[in-house]
Every structure is written in C-alpha cells, then in structure tokens.
C-alpha cells in the first residue's frame, strides 16, 4: 500500500478527520492541484466505502439455483463455483490449463495414470487444511452423483480409480487412455470433506446418505477466494472475500461481490444510472450496451472459443450432398451477420483462434461468393429438379437467431432453395437431435467448451460416438476424424497433440459439415474503475482477478 | 280536519316511446282527491291506472316517458316545479303501498333495517334527532299500528321469512312512516291469499279513516272498491270513462264498460256466471279512434268511431264519457 492509500483508508475508517487528512496530505508533499483531485477521489472513496468495503455489483440474467458443483455447471452455477472453490488446475486465457492447487503433476506415457501433488497449507473457509482426501472425496462424489459436470469422466474413470497416495498426493487411474484429462480438471471443484460429510443426510448414496446434496444446494464448502455471504434466491447473491485465501490478495481487490438477478435491459440501465451497477452480464442487448457507453461505461469485448455454427445434417437429403453443403456455406452472408446481427470474429473452421496452440491458421478464410455457390450447387445430384427444400431451425425467442434465419431464407431462396424456417424451443431442439431423420437440414447452434481443450470441441461435435445430441446435429461420421480424435486422446505430448488437432480441423473443413459463421464475442459493459477483465474459456467471472479503484 | 289539502289531476296524459312507436297509455285523465277522501280507481290490468299513479308520484322513467297536463296540489302544478321541489312535496305529502308486498321490500335486508332506515330519513327531514333506542321504539310502535303482534320478531326477519299478509302490513306501516296526507295503494291485495285480502283491506281503510288521511286505491276488482271507496273512477285503455260516488256507481252504472265490469264480479247469490266483456284491451300504439272502447262496445254508434266522447254529467258528482249520454242527441 502506498502512503496515500493508507491515508485514504484511515479517513474511511474514521481514524482521521477530513481536515487532518488535508494537513497530512500537504505534509506528504502533495501539490495543491493533486490535493483537490484527491479530495474528489476521497469523496468517491468515502461514498463507496460507507460499508467499509470495496464492493463490485453486477447483474446476472438467471437465478443461481442449485450451486452444488456435482449437480450443474451452467452460467450462474459456474459463476458461484469458480469463486467459492478451487480446482487442481486452473483454466488459462489461451484455452489451456495451469497449476492451481497443485505444484506439479505427471502423466503416464499411456495417458492412463495421472498423479498430482498438492500445495501444502491451503485452508478451506472452515479453516481445515485441503488434502488429497478432499480431492478423492470430491471426484468420487461427482462420479457417484453422475450429473452433468461429471459427464466427461463417466466411462473414463471409476470411483475406485481415485486414490490418495499420501496426504498431498492424488492418483487418478483411468479405465482408458485420455490424454486431455488434466484439461478437464478445472471442472473438479474441491470440497471440504469434513464439512460436507458432517451434513450428510439419509439418501440414496448408501453409506454417504445424500452425499450432502441438500446442504451444498445452497451452501458452499470450498477454499476459493470468496465465501457465500447471502443468497436471496431469485434476487441477489452476495460473496465476501475470504481473508485466508492461499493466493493472498492484491491491491484494490474486490472485498464484496453482489450479483443482482436482473434480466431486463431497462432495469440494468437504470441501475447503472443510479450508480449501483459496476458491470453487466454478457447477455445484454446491443442497444443497452450503446446506452451504457453513453453513461460512461466501457465495453469489454473479447473473442471467445464459442463458435456459431449452422449445423448441416449430413444424413438427410439434400444436405447429405457435399456440393449442397458447400453451396450453402458459400452463399451465406457472413458480413451482414457480423456487422448487423451478431458481433463476432471470423473463423476458418470448427475451432476458434483463441486455442492459440491448436488453431490451424493455414486454412483459408471464408467469404460469401454467390457465383461460386451457384456453380457448386449445379454440381449436386439435386440440381435441376426445381427448388431444393431445406428445413432450418433455431431457438425461439432470440431476436438475432430469428434475423439470421430470415437472412438465410432470403439468400438461399435466391440461389435455388426452398427454405422452411422452423423456430423451436431449446428443449425441442435437443429432442429432435436424437435421430438423424428428425434433425433439420440446418440448425443454428452455439458451441463452446466445458473444459479448456480442443478435445471438448471435437469429441462432442464430430466423433461418431457422440452422435445424437444437439451438439452433433451434423451426424458427422468420418472414420478418419474418429481415428485422429482417438489418437489425440492417447497422445500425452502436447505439441504432437496440437498437430493432430490441426489435421482434424483441415479434414473437417474439407467435408463442410457446418457453416462456420463466427467466433462469438464476449461483451460486458463495465465501469472504467473496474480492471483486470479477461476472457478465460470455461472459467469466466473469476472475481479474484478483478480490481476496482 | 288536520290536513286540508286537495290533489287535482287535470287532463293528464302519459306517452311512452318504444321501438314499436309511441303509446299514449293515459289519455287526458282528470281526477280530484279531497281531504279525507278514499278514491277508488278501477280497471282491467293494463288500463293505465297504475301508470297514472306513478306519473303523479314521479316514478316513471324520464327517458322514455312524456307527461302532459297538470298535477295540482293545493292549486300548484307539481309538474312545473323543479324535480327537487316536486320530490320534496311528494315525500312530504304522498306515500304508496305497492302491489307486491315481497317485491317492494328489499330481500337482502331485514325488516328492521329497512324500517329504521326509512324512519331515520323521516327524522332527518323533520329535523328530529333520535338515538338507536328511540328509533327502535318508533319502529315497534309503527308495526303495532298495523297490528303486527310480535314486532321484535318481525323486525329481525327477512321479507321472505314472513307471510304475504305480514309483508303487506309492513308495507302499509312503511307508507305510514312518513305521515303522508295521501296514500296511494296500487292493487294492495292482488298478490295475497283470498283469506287475508279482506283483512288487509279493512286494516288499510280503517287506518286511512282513523288517521284522517286521503287515499287512492287502485284495483281491478269492483268488489274491493264497493266496500271501501267513497268515490270511484273507472278507467279503460288510459281513459277515465266514468266517475261517481261509490254507492251511485254500483246502484246505477252508466258506461257500457262499467256495466260489463260489474257483470264480471262473481255474485255469490246468483246462479249464473259472469257474462264478461268480449275482446281484449286495444293496442296502445294503434289506439282505436274516437271512443277507445268502441270496438268492444255492444252499443257502438258511428259517432263513437269518429269522435272522442266528452264527459257528460249524469248525476251529482257522476260523470260519464259516453255518447249514449249526450243530452243534445
């Protein structure tokens, strides 16, 4: 802390009168101009510090619901978990991982055994030390409860495969080779076993009763930078800085976080006007961001790993014909989409550039070319028999998805397609994705990672074993890609694995299963006083990284 | 006499406007009620007698009704007064007993609530200040006046819990509550059992006589007016066709319609049933020309079709609107 900061703090704490402050500031040799500026700063400081805390207030557009890390990991659940808990490895901005609770880890050459050594002296919020037993408990619990967050480990790891070798060493013995396993570990939040097991109630998990699910639905048991202060379901969740956090804290760090559940743009704007709000969610409308900019907010934007695809059903006529798929990709109006409808960064294939080591930059950029599209379509077996029917689905209630549908309809009908727009509620899309015969010809889908690895993009979308979900509506079935993915999963060496990923991208692009529209842009309006923002795939909203002055 | 007033209706006409056209349901009716007099108005259902009374009491819907002629009370034409002033006179001097004793009492409030309300309003008008107990006392006294034996039970009861006769006694009591000079009774016994009709009628006429009030008794029954009224008017299709002291009328009815009506009264002594009058009341929107009775009249003459008969005086206080009595012919 600088002297000046100390001074300010003591004024805020009431140790010094304001006049005393002026005198001492002058004694510190601060010039008159700076003094008057500081007086303003002081007022601001005093205002925000009526509670004595550096508070960050932001809005979220959905309720938190159940915050148990083994139950769900959607946007708000993740926001809570990543701040209350720590994991063995943390996600990086380049879509990779770095050590967090561990000092180092090792992988066996066959990509089946992974051993992690924990840092010593890390304390849970309860004060108990975090040990290997907690890691074992957390993983076994997630595997047993078997809900969404454990999906990636199911079939790869059994509860018995997790062992504490000593107080600080954990070993995961996988059922099958899975080289990207470490990249999945940011999603394993380490629970305070003593605390949780003291809240076990009777339940369906045998000796473990309910595994503490009732308790963890509304409470946390972590070691993370923040603790749960209060949760008024449906309106507000408050977090408070954990003073004993093992990574310490930095200057101007956030003492308290208030997450207000506010969806409507109008309310967000009025909160910003009254000075309450420091940061918006990433889901506000474009006009709201414009208004907020005029109110003195800055816009934080960053390209993400999430790609906006038009997924084409390769098992259904006419999109089973590569010429039809190429024609659609060539005809699509990328510029209007990016400029008018959905801000984003250009992509050249299924992977966004944010995966900086695995991104295949040698693939050509994609552009609209109606003449080429027509020529490509003429080569197809469906050409020359009148307008070719196409079904096109997107999620109801989303303004830009509807606009993109209309744009698609307009362009495609000009080159010889007859498009039927079929907006569906999200759940309906998940239903029809189960069968190739019910999957529409084209569907608008965003897909981002659940763990920071290209594997998360490829396996779920393009491996034939993953068919039948909304993420794989292409019904992509290519033995070459399957084998490359399989190989990548047993390749422990990162560089070799990345080379494989680049080949996979090239192969996928050559088959044109999708229109690769853009990489989604992450957008938040933030007060200039808030700094430290960074987009980290699958690990957004780490309040630990933020500062507010 | 304590209330020496006079009510005189002069050439009163009432016209209804409907989608079928206009209907003059009371046509140039004249009538006088002197102090202490009980006047009967007789006619078939629909002959306009009730409308006539409602016109006097200002009970007709203003939107669809037109009233011509004069309603003079002590020589002042009520029709020319403001609505407010007219209402003040009506409230102070007149009151009414309705045909349907149950329908004229509010079914959702007890007799007591309704009686007390009316008495309280009367008190207010008279500038009297009384507490609840005094009001109760007054209510009980009022009911006693109409010979209701158990006033407390009656006050607690809802109208549907009482018999028709008792309800009508309550109605009469309510009519008396404002101490009116004139009580209009519109078919007060029609809705009652035959057995109590006479009782109510006796009670009504006794109260009028004893308390020296005037009354207009409207009925379709000759039998009712014969025993109670001093003077009787006979109406047909909105027209007063005959007026006479009760005794004269029954002794020597002149108008063919009156004669027919009297034939309708079943005679307990006679063997034969009533002869009655053939035909029905005319349609008011297309009323017959001349004498409105001519289509049904056994003595109709050409002039009856052409010209409306004026009143011909045929005896002391006895007038009749019929060309048969035109002395000039």
């Amino acid at each position, binding site marked *: 802390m600088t002297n000046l900061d100390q001074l300010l703090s003591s004024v805020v704490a009431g140790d010094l009168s304001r006049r005393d402050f002026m005198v001492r500031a002058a004694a510190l040799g601060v010039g008159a101009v700076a003094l008057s500026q500081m007086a303003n700063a002081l007022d601001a400081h005093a205002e925000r510090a009526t509670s004595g805390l550096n508070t960050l207030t932001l809005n979220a557009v959905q309720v938190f619901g159940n915050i148990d890390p083994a139950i769900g990991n959607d946007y708000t659940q993740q926001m809570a978990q990543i701040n209350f808990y720590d994991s063995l490895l943390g996600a990086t901005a380049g879509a990779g991982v770095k050590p967090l609770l561990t000092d180092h880890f090792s992988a066996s050459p066959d990509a089946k055994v992974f051993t992690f050594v924990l840092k010593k002296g890390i304390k849970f919020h309860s004060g108990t030390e975090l040990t290997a037993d907690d890691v074992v408990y957390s993983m076994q619990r997630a595997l047993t409860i078997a809900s969404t967050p454990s999906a990636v480990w199911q079939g790869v790891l059994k509860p018995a495969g997790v062992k504490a070798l000593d107080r600080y060493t954990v070993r995961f013995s996988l059922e099958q080779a899975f080289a990207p396993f470490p990249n999945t570990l940011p999603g394993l939040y380490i629970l305070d076993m003593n605390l949780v097991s003291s809240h076990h109630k009777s339940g369906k998990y045998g000796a473990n009763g309910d595994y503490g699910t009732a308790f963890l639905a509304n409470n946390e048991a972590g070691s993370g930078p923040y603790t749960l202060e209060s949760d008024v379901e449906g309106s507000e969740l408050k977090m408070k800085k954990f003073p004993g956090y093992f990574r310490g804290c930095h200057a101007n760090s956030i003492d308290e976080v208030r997450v207000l559940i506010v969806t409507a743009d109008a309310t967000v704007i009025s909160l910003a006007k009254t000075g309450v709000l420091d940061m918006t969610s990433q889901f506000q409308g474009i006009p709201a961001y414009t208004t907020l900019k005029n109110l003195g907010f800055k816009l934080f934007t960053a390209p993400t790993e999430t790609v906006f695809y038009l997924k084409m059903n390769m098992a259904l006529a006419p999109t089973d014909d590569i010429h039809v798929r190429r024609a659609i990709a060539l005809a699509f109006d990328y510029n209007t989409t990016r400029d008018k409808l959905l801000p984003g960064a250009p992509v050249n294939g299924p992977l966004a550039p944010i995966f900086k080591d695995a991104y295949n930059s040698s693939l050509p950029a994609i552009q609209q070319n109606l003449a080429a599209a027509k020529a490509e379509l003429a080569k197809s077996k469906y050409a020359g028999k009148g307008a070719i029917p196409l079904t096109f689905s997107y999620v109801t209630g989303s303004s830009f998805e509807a606009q993109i549908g209309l744009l698609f309809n307009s362009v495609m009908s000009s080159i010889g397609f007859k498009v039927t727009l079929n907006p569906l509620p999200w759940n309906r899309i998940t239903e029809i994705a189960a069968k190739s015969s019910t999957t529409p010809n084209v569907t608008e889908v965003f897909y981002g990672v659940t763990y920071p690895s290209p594997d998360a993009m490829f396996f779920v979308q393009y491996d034939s074993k993953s068919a039948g979900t909304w993420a794989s509506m292409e019904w992509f079935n290519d033995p070459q890609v399957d084998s490359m993915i399989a190989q990548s999963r047993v390749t422990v060496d990162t560089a070799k694995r990345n080379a494989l990923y680049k080949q996979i991208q090239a192969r996928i692009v050559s088959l044109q299963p999708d229109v690769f529209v853009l990489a989604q842009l992450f957008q938040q309006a933030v007060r200039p006083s808030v700094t430290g923002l960074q987009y980290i795939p699958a690990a957004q909203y780490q309040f630990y990284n933020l500062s507010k002055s | 006499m304590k209330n020496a007033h006079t009510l005189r209706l002069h050439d009163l006409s009432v016209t209804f406007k409907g989608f079928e056209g206009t209907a003059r349901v009371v046509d140039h009716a004249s009538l006088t009620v002197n102090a202490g007099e009980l006047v009967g108005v007789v006619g078939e259902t629909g002959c306009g007698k009730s409308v006539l009374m409602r016109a006097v009491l200002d009970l007709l819907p203003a939107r669809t009704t037109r009233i011509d002629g004069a309603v003079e009370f002590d020589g002042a034409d009520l029709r020319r007064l403001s609505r407010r002033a007219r209402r003040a006179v009506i409230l102070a001097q007149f009151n009414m007993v309705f045909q349907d004793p149950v329908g004229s009492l509010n079914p959702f409030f007890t007799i007591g609530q309704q009686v007390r309300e009316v008495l309280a309003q009367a008190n207010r008008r008279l500038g009297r200040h009384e507490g609840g107990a005094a009001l109760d006392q007054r209510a009980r006294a009022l009911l006693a006046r109409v010979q209701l034996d158990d006033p407390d039970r009656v006050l607690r009861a809802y109208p549907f819990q009482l018999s028709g006769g008792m309800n009508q006694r309550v109605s009469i009591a309510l009519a008396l509550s*404002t101490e009116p000079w004139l009580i209009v009774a519109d078919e007060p016994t029609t809705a009652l059992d035959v057995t109590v009709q006479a009782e109510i009628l006796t009670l009504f006429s006794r109260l009028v006589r004893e308390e020296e009030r005037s009354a207009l008794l409207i009925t379709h029954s000759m039998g009712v007016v014969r025993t109670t009224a001093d003077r009787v008017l006979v109406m047909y299709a909105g027209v007063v066709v005959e007026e006479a002291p009760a005794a004269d009328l029954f002794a020597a009815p002149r108008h063919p319609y009156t004669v027919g009506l009297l034939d309708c009264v079943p005679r307990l002594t006679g063997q034969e049933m009533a002869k009655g009058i053939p035909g029905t009341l005319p349609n008011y929107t297309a009323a017959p020309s001349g004498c409105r009775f001519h289509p049904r009249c056994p003595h109709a003459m050409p002039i009856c079709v052409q010209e409306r008969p004026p009143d011909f005086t045929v005896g002391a206080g006895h007038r009749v609107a019929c060309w048969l009595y035109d002395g000039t012919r």
Partner: protein
Amino acid sequence: MNYGSFLTRRTGQAILVLLGLSVLMFVLARIVPGDPGRLALGPTATASQVKGLDHDFGLDQPIWVQYAKYLGNATHGDFGQALLTRRSVERDMQDSFPATLELVLASTILVVGIGVPLGVLAALNRDGPIDAATRLLALVGVAVPDFLLGIALQLIFGYWLGVLPISGQLDPNLQFSTSFTGMVLPDALLQRNWPVLGSAFTHLILPAIALSAAGLSQVVRLLRASMIEVLRREHVRAMELRGVSRMRIAFKYALKPALIPALTVVGLTFASLFGEAFLIEAVFSWPGIAAYGLRAMQEKDLNAIVGVVLVVGLMFSLANLAMDLLRGYLDPRIRLKGAA
C-alpha cells in the same frame, strides 16, 4: 338443503374437478414424446446417466404407478423436482407464488375498488357522460390485449416520461427479505421499511393496472347491467318514495342485490388474473409463479408445468368456491333457506 350441505357439495365438486385436472395434466405431461432426462443432462451425458436420472425421477415405471405416487406426494405439497432448476417444484413455487399473489391481489383491489363504484355510477347516470366514459373504458379493457396495454404503459410512463419503473418487483438496489406474508408490500409495511414500501408500491402500479384492465371492464359492465336491473325493482322505488336518497339506495340497498350475482364474476376475474399474469409477468419481468410457469412451459419442464397448472387450478377453484360460499352467506335467502 341447508347452507351446510350446500357448502359440502360445492367443496366436493371443487375437489373432484381438481382431481380430474391433475389426471388430465399428468397424462398430458407423460404421453408426450421426448427425453426429459437427456434434456436435463445435456449433450455430454452418457446413456447410463440418462437412465439413472429417469430412474431417480421414476420415469421408468408404468404411468398409473407414476400418477399414484405423484398424487400421494402432491397432496402434501411435493410436486417432484424441476428438471431444469434441479430444485423441488414446491420450493420454486413457494419462492415465486407470493409475488404473483401480491400482483393479483393489487389488481383485484383495483378491479373491485374502481369497478364497483364506476358500475354503480354508470347505472345511476345511465346514458349520461359518466356512463359513456365508462362504456368506452370497458370497451378498451375488453379489446386491448393486456400485454399490449402493459407495453404501452411501459413506453409512456417508463421510457418516455420516466416516472415509474417498468420491470421487477423492487429496486434491485434495495435489500429486503419478506417475513410474514411473503409479499413485499405488506411485509414492508409490517417491518416499517419505508424505502422498500415506496419502491414496491411504484413497481406495482403499472403491472397492476395492466393486469386489472380486462377484469375491470368486465366488472363494470356486469355491475352496470345488474345495477340497472336492480334499480328497476319495486323495492328501490318504494324506498325512494319513502325518502331514502338515491345515492344511499344505490350504494347500500341496491348494491347488495346487484353485487351478489356479480360476485361470481369477481371470483372468476380474480381467478383469471392468475392466467393473465402469465402475460403481464412476462411484460414486466415480475418474479412470480406465472413467470416461473412460463419458463417451465418454454423449456418443457414437465413437473414444473404440472405443478404450476395445478396451483393455478387450485387458486381458480378456491376463488370460485369462496365466491359461491360468500354469495351463499351474503344472500339471506340461501343462507337461511339453502335455496341455491
């Protein structure tokens, strides 16, 4: 038949209808194609995870077994787990119901408090200016969809004039936990929390107006008609002739008989407000059970849909039952003789 057995019969009917509704909704929710387990677990879930969830939710049992279990649980308020929030539907509804109740009650107060006097005045002033204005108002209330009215109010008072808030139940900056009633406005009053009271009140104004418009016009129309009918009755004339003023008759002696048939409509209006709330809560981002139900419907969260529809049905039945009973109580002819 006396009032007691009238009461019993009416309650029995309501229970029967609710049972029928539960069967209807349950069957409807179970016969649809789809895979709720898959839906809840997402694309990365394995087949055995989906199976496990189906088993947890009892989706692998015959439908009548499922229904019997469901009904047994529902009778003590357990409507199962919401697939999407992964919380009990009961708790979700407990959280959101008071907000809707608050909105519906406020609208009911508007409907009755404005509708009744307006209907009486229109009847007294038949074909006069008040009557004409009332009829115009009633027409607007019937013809303008309430969501459009809500949007128009937002545009005018929120966006253009900027005098009233247009979304939510409370200024998000204010912190408040409800205590006794679960509703913000009454609880703020009980806790003497004036800033919250003020904020809750201003937030309530626009949605309550938008929600009440249709019911208001119904009640005004009906009350006007029944008042005109009652004012024609002999007992009104009789009372007038006996010196009671027209206003006093209208608002006391004629109002009761005119209001009793209208009570049925007031009950229906109150109940239908729970339906219209689905639109108004969507317009005003009101955090109520209708918004919850709407989300459930959009996301096809079956347990939540069935739960919400049953609760709305329960409110509907209760409101109608209450009005019937109240009518029976207020009408001495039914109360004392039992003639329904």
